[in-house]
């Protein structure tokens, strides 16, 4: 199998649920062609076989939440020509970044019988807070079509075609009725980056913000509007604190509602 001409692909896991790696495995029909274009050299979730680095493309899933991982990510960077982070954990700290707003020592003492065994950092941080990242692919989980586009772009040495506009663009293109306007359903779509194909609004649910902030997110205006429509301050705070709570625009907006939410 070892074909010198094919770029070597590695898939790394940090603090995460593995869902984004599964998105790669779930590519199914595309996996065989993918294996023809890249050499899957390191992917413990899929195979125990390991081909040594350095690697041409590294996909990194997960956030940094331990001292050991804070060191390991530098080693990953050293052996990777191109480092691409995948998913909300790797790009914004993930749902585990909720700890960033709380006292981890207190959680540890309450949750675990032997808190002294738990080695964890006070904050969950994205990979880009530690090393240089060549491209960030957003989503919780990422979209398989976007992942294949990013891999194709890496193989073909071009810029990936991943839009940074809002979910509303995809919602309108597919002809879904706006749940915010027609139902009064709170929806993060206007401030969230596209990529999911407006999955939730198409099923009459508001957007949960899985793909993180769009490139020009006016979170304050959306929060003002939610307030006018009757959402309480604690709920506005929580609305911005989910999978991408650690992303700068969502973090900043949620903190604007802390005082009133107390």
């Amino acid at each position, binding site marked *: 199998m070892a074909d010198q001409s094919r770029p070597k692909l590695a898939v790394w896991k940090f603090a995460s649920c593995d869902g984004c790696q599964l998105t790669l495995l779930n590519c199914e029909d*595309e996996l065989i*062609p*993918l294996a*023809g*274009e890249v050499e899957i050299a390191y992917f413990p979730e899929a195979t125990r076989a390991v081909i040594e680095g350095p690697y041409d493309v590294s996909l990194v899933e997960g956030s940094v939440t331990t001292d050991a991982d804070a060191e390991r990510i530098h080693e990953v960077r050293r052996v990777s020509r191109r480092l691409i982070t995948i998913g909300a954990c790797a790009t914004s700290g993930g749902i585990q970044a909720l700890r960033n707003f709380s006292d981890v020592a207190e959680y540890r003492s309450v949750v675990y019988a032997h808190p002294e065994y738990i080695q964890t950092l006070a904050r969950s941080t994205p990979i880009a807070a530690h090393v240089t990242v060549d491209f960030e692919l957003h989503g919780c989980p990422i979209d398989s079509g976007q992942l*294949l586009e990013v*891999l*194709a772009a890496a*193989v*073909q040495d071009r810029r990936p*075609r991943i*839009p*940074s*506009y*809002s979910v*509303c*663009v995809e919602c*309108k*293109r*597919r*002809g*879904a*009725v*706006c749940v*915010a*306007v*027609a*139902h*009064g359903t709170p*929806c993060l*779509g*206007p*401030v969230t980056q596209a990529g999911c194909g407006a999955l939730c609004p198409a099923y*009459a649910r508001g957007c949960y913000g899985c793909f993180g902030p*769009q*490139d*020009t997110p*006016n979170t*304050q*205006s*959306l929060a*003002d*509007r939610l307030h006018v429509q009757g959402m309480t301050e604690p709920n506005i705070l929580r609305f911005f604190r989910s999978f991408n709570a650690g992303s700068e625009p969502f973090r900043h907006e949620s903190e604007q509602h802390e005082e009133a939410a107390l």
Partner: protein
Amino acid sequence: MDNSSEMILRVAGLQSLIDLLRAQAWVVVGPTVRDGAIVHAPIESVDQLPRGIGDLQDGGSYRLRQRGDEALFGYSVGPQGWKSLLFPSRELLWSGQRDGADVAVEPAVVDPPRLALLGVRSCDLHAIAIHDRVLTERAVPDAAYAARRDNIFVVAVTCSDPGGTCFCVSMGTGPVPDRGFDLALTELLDPAGHRFLVVPGTARGAQVLDELRALAADEAAMPADEPDRLAARDVGAQAALRMGRALDVDGIRDLLYANTEHPQWEDVASRCLACTNCTLVCPTCFCTSVDDVGDLTGSTTERWRVWDSCFNTDFSYLHGGSVRSSVSSRYRQWATHKLASWVDQFGTSGCVGCGRCITWCPAAIDITAEVAAIRSRED
């Protein structure tokens, strides 16, 4: 057209019209309720129309309501114009195959469906006319649009109950259809019964009415008389008095050109979500970008044209960055193009007063209010 070709249809007669159009191989697309809104979908029966359903519209808000009557067209415009049928949100332009050094390019095949559009409002007729100008009357016509456009039959309807965000009267585009239709209906709900005055707008429309006359039962389709015509005229006249919004268009082109640095642009930017909803629901916005979609092996590619928006950062991306990085510059670009430079470019306003950009803005931004604010405090 002389008056003699006008007809009165009962609801059963409207069904006969739908049946006749379908028998002539038209796919009838009309209003129906889906997901809490009135949208366009293929229909076969008058029972699929939004009987007794109206709407309440305001900035950033749309709700259906029970009218308490049997009206089939008693609503204002819904979220979709007819744009998505004639100018689809995603359209394949060509595909390519690479075999070694050989590249074969295959243009997309345009096979337009025969669509009979039922219930087109006057504002949307004007919007289609604007698209005709923009897409087919310039140096390089859009062949796919033209092919679709040549394959539609238009059944317009007089707007009887304008929405809270409507301002077609200000724009001179409604509420009574004045052009661009094969047939125009006016729904009448008075003591003389639930019926429709039908007026032909083309020879093709008149011919359909002739065939309908021969086909439909006597009590379902009959000649129109003078009281019917007066009642229909009154529907339009009453609707014109009930516009939810107004836009003062006096000197609007020069007003906007003279106020490019007005502080209102920053004010609106503080509220604007840059989400693109206004542009994507606008029946005249026509901006697109192209997506080149290749496969992993680099052997096949497809070029898709997709709806884009001047509110997207990358829409104005040139070498080195976006021309309009601030949201204030994007809103100014949109409003000024729509209401001012459109006139220079295409000879009409780009706005038909349908109010969709107001209703479907999640931040409730109202273009009529923004222009009024600029007018009240000129630089």
